[in-house]
């Protein structure tokens, strides 16, 4: 284990990694980061909740889910080709790995295809899933591909992952219907995941407030992830996978 860097302490971090000297001198909480000399473990968590399976008007399948799965597989493929150990898990408890080498690639693809054909996990709870995964997780890199749209929130799950020694990066996948809703009028909105109803009378003012709320929502996630030393990228699922992987993620240094 070799010292690498410091980062700010967040709830859930192992108190044994606190730098007590800095706390004594400056009254600030930092934890020490170490580079594992062994091969890194890359964990890819793919949200398979109902909201991720959203089929927009005019679509025959869920483009949102397809794009999320493609991103997860692309990261897995890169990690496997780099010789890292890869763990692939969905919120519906489908799991693969740890695998090493390109031989694990086909297994990841089969799992993704199998998951695409299965019904959405309507009972999913993001925090619960992430906590459960953190309990048995190995320290390393963690990529969470999710829309983060869970009524119970996501903070506890992120804390649990951080506490397990995972450096969590989030690929926040949102579809155009979520980024720029094209609806108006007196509506009763039905959540396809929870079946909850919400009455709204949509006019330009309400839509404007929605956009403000969405911006605050993404900014909050970005802030929480970056405080934990991770990365954040908002994915518009209408963007092609080539643009996302070879363009956006490569440019931002997600992929070598």
């Amino acid at each position, binding site marked *: 284990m070799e010292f690498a860097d410091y980062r700010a302490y967040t709830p859930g971090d192992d108190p044994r990694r606190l730098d007590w000297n800095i706390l004594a001198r400056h009254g600030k909480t930092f934890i020490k980061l170490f580079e594992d000399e062994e091969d890194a473990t890359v964990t890819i968590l793919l949200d398979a909740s*109902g*909201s991720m399976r*959203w089929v927009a*008007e005019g679509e025959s399948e869920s483009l*949102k889910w397809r794009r999320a799965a493609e991103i997860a597989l692309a990261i897995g493929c890169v990690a496997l080709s780099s010789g890292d150990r890869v763990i692939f898990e969905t919120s519906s408890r489908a799991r693969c790995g740890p695998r090493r080498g390109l031989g694990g690639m086909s297994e990841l693809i089969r799992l993704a295809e199998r998951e695409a054909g299965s019904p959405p996990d309507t009972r999913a709870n993001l925090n619960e899933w992430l906590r459960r995964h953190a309990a048995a997780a190995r320290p390393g890199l963690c990529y969470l591909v999710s*829309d983060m*749209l*869970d*009524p119970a929130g996501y903070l506890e799950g992120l804390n649990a992952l951080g506490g397990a020694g995972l450096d969590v990066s989030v690929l926040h996948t949102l*579809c155009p*219907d*979520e980024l720029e*809703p*094209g*609806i*108006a*009028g*007196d*509506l*009763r*909105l*039905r*959540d*396809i*995941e*929870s079946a*909850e*109803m*919400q*009455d*709204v*009378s*949509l*006019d330009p003012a*309400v839509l404007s*407030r*929605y956009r403000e*709320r*969405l911006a605050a*929502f993404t900014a909050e996630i970005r802030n929480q992830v970056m405080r934990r030393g991770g990365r954040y990228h908002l994915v518009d699922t209408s963007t092609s996978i080539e643009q996302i992987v070879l363009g956006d993620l490569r440019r931002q240094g997600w992929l070598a």
Partner: protein
Amino acid sequence: MAGVNALNPIGLALALLAIPIVLLYLLRLRRREQRVSSTLLWRQTVMDREANALWQRLRPNILLLLQLLTLAFLVFALTRPYALAPAGLTGRAIVLLDASASMEATDVAPSRFEAARRGVRGLIDGLGTTDEMTIILVDGSPRALTPLTSSRADLYAALEQARTSLAPANWSAALSLAGALRTPSTSIVIIGDGANSDDLKAQADPAQFRPVGGAGANIAISAFALRQTVRGASALARVTNHGSQDATVLLSLRAGTANGTATSLLDARELQIAAGQSAQWTVNGIDPAAAYVRASIDRVAPAESNVLSADDMAWAVNAAPAPRRALLLSRGNRFLEQALGALPNLQVTRAISMPIDFAQPYDLIVVDGISATLPARSHALFVNPIADTPVFSLGAVFSATGFVDAAQHPTLLAVDWRGINVLDARRVAGPGWLLPVVNAQGGPLMLAGESPAAEGRTPEFERLAILPFDLRRSDLPLQIAFPVLIANTVEWLAPLRGLDVPISARPGEALALPVGASVVNPAGARQTVDARGYGATGLPGMYSYALGAASGLFAVNFLDARESAIVPDPEVALRAAGTATDANGLQVQLSQREIWPFLAALALVALLVEWWIYQRGMPALRRRTGPDSRS
């Protein structure tokens, strides 16, 4: 238009119907179901708006808005709102339009008359198809511009022809005219400035009075005259300030020539005139060569003190008529001397024989009982001729002097010969043109005639009259007919060179000018006088006339203190209480004009729009909303 009021304000209570409409809407509001990937963000979005969720539901619904709009229009219509608007005319209407001089005042732009004309135009605009109107122009001689008609075109055309006059408005005649046209259902509207309208105040018939104009100030030449003195003519001008503030007036006098073109400044003076006061100015030593003098107000300070220009000029004829010269050849006849001496403009010289040398020919020669040789072309009256002349010869004396008849002759105008007794007279034999004027049983008692023009020969007499008897041997000199006969004879024999025309007249006044006289008005228009005299004196200024060799000038002046006082009479103005002033400065009677039909029409339109949108299913809204839930 004044504010809007309501006749039935309690109708506003029906606005409460909006409550059940909104409640019914809320009850029947059915939201379309729409699937979304997650309601998480939507819930957070509307969370802080739940408090006014009711409005959030109601706001985008255009149908509800239209229904409420329809209700609002209906409720307002039921309150019977009205606006105060200029009262229109219905049925038959007689409009009396003041066209007196004061209507030319410019205290209302462009003038009171134009403002009044616009007011009449507004009344014409408001006429219904079956309504009838006539317009009576009220000036010195009021007249109906049109008969009672429903043709707006005729009324507009007649109105365009209307002009003001400098003659004072004759309201009593105008009201008589209106009364003749009036029926019980006829309304009379009087549009004028209410100035100088005592007759108007006295009229008893119900009529609307619509005053035009404000408290206009005016400065006028109220008097202007020339007086002949031993040192020449002197001019007297009086300027009156009819306004309520003091003013400074620059008054100038100019002399004009007989042809009326050239004028030269005689004098000018600034007069300080207190409000309501007059100032006089006398200028002596007027050039005797001046045919007339013109006084004019050239400048007034402050300018708004003088809003009527018609009375800013006056003219006076410098009339010094040359007296006629008469020669009385007599050994003494007191009757004749007195009768001739009493005649105006006649300078009588008595002699017993014809003067040898006289530079100026006499206009008239009276020969009384003397034998004399008169110059050629004489105008002569022979009384008791004693010798023959080249024209007539004397015959025997006759005493059968009983009156037989008298001819229609100017010399006998207002002369009754029947009571006149003559002791004896001589017979006279003359040429054919010398005709007996008065015949007695024994022969003519008076002869008169005008020598016809003959080529190559100078007549001895141009006009000749003969009384072939001795006045002292008759009672004629004692009769009232005698001075009349002498005056008539003198006028016939030697008429005034300038004709008997007054030198001053008022605008619109008809003058008894001789038939055939040619008159040129100040604008240069020439008119020949017919038997009705000359009445085209509407234009103030100098007029010239000519008839044969006789010519002269007369002035038409707008010197009328009553018309110059253009401030509306407060007693008349009181009748216009409850009026408003329109854009033309015209005060108008206001009436309540209900506007509920307009509101009811708006309600109908809103209802139709709501129905149309409902039928079309609000496609615009549907496009925005997207298809219903697929579930």
